[in-house]
């Protein structure tokens, strides 16, 4: 039911994502083209980016047309419904947490960063028992850190180990 209501709303997220991706394709192709020393440097990238941008714009157009055809069949109450917001918020928070984790690893280290990330992710998932959060985070993050750094000899920034 949630997904049905959301499908009838204007697909803003889809369109913004597709346009952002198209812009990224264009920026990348332009950057490669400007720095290219010969045709072979951009021969694959520029046409591929062109095809990708075209495909994304077609996708955006199809989404808008689809929404236009559907919106007259809708009940206004369903449009105004914000039922989906409750399920979107945790996912958005988790995305922010993941981005923060990736950004802070060079500063606070892979060991402490992983521990804190798992703690906060568990809290977001609804776990409220502090001993479970701390214990589980330690039990999961410590072996991962040891395996990657000690066994696999992967050079990662660490704070404690």
């Amino acid at each position, binding site marked *: 039911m949630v997904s049905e209501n959301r499908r009838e709303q204007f697909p803003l997220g889809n369109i913004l994502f597709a346009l952002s991706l198209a812009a990224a*394709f264009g920026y*990348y192709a332009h950057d*490669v083209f400007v*720095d290219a020393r010969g045709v*072979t440097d951009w021969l694959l990238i520029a046409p591929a*980016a062109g*095809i*990708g941008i075209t*495909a994304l714009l077609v*996708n955006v157009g199809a989404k808008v047309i689809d929404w236009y055809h559907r919106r007259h069949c809708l009940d206004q109450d369903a449009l105004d419904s914000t039922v989906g917001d409750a399920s979107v918020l945790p996912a958005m928070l988790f995305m922010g947490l993941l981005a923060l984790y990736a950004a802070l690893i060079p500063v606070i280290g892979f060991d402490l960063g992983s521990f804190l990330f798992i703690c906060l992710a568990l809290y977001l998932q609804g776990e409220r028992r502090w001993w479970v959060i701390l214990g589980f985070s330690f039990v999961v993050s410590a072996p991962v850190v040891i395996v990657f750094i000690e066994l696999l000899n992967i050079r990662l920034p660490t704070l404690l180990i």
Partner: protein
Amino acid sequence: MINVDAFQAAINLLSTPDAWWVVPPGLIIGLFFGSIPGLSISIAMAVFLPATLYMDFLPAILFLTAIFTGGGFGGAIPAIMLNIPGTSSSVATAFDGYPMACRGEHAQALGIGLVGSVLGTLAGYVLLLFAVQFISHWVLRLGPTEMLVVALWGVTLIAILNDASISKGISAGIFGILISTIGYSDAGQMRGTFGSMYLLDGIPVIPGLIGFFAASELFNLVGKQYIVNDSSLREVKFANILSGMRYAFGKPFQLLRGSVMGTVIGAIPGVGASIANLARISHEGIKESG
């Protein structure tokens, strides 16, 4: 054709019982490394390569082959259970395996995957045994043009695989192509590195796979308690794995077709199992829709 004398010598070597004790640990290591997203078969081989220094050449080869073979199925485990392919060759397994897991049929999916992996690998080895000489001559004739055609075929397969929208599939394929061009080009041009030295070598396949599959699946799972809602379906019963294996054994022609297709596509350098598994599932999808 095969060199009969060399084949006979190889069979004689394999009849040495002492050489086989390394196979079970090799399979377990391969399973372990293949089933953990982030660890791969190549990492397993790199980590355990020093162990082969203390072995004779036959156990060493058997050990590494066992790691490779175990990892082939190991990648299917997270693909089925978590929708996160452990290796690039198990991407297609996630398409059908994860929906089965969500319905509580994860044990059957594991059984099907196990039989498919074992028989497919066995058939592939046998086919290669008879065709390796011919294929090696043929593969050496492949040039940049043929490789480009195969790569474009791979992108087309992605477009076909996306039932909802071909344009979405094409843009996903192009996205993959553009990501693969990040880093130093063959001509020495630095592309899309944003000044970071970590991107000079480009983005390897496994981290890319994990980023796209694991991260998106994590976002999907936020707020959910379990993948399978019904608690009675959450158990992994050996009987269900066996029923999945029986189901797979009942489809010998599909298994043979997949093995032949995997062997032929897998023999192409630079393409391998990554495209072979997608080609196979798209072929099945086309047959079903037809």
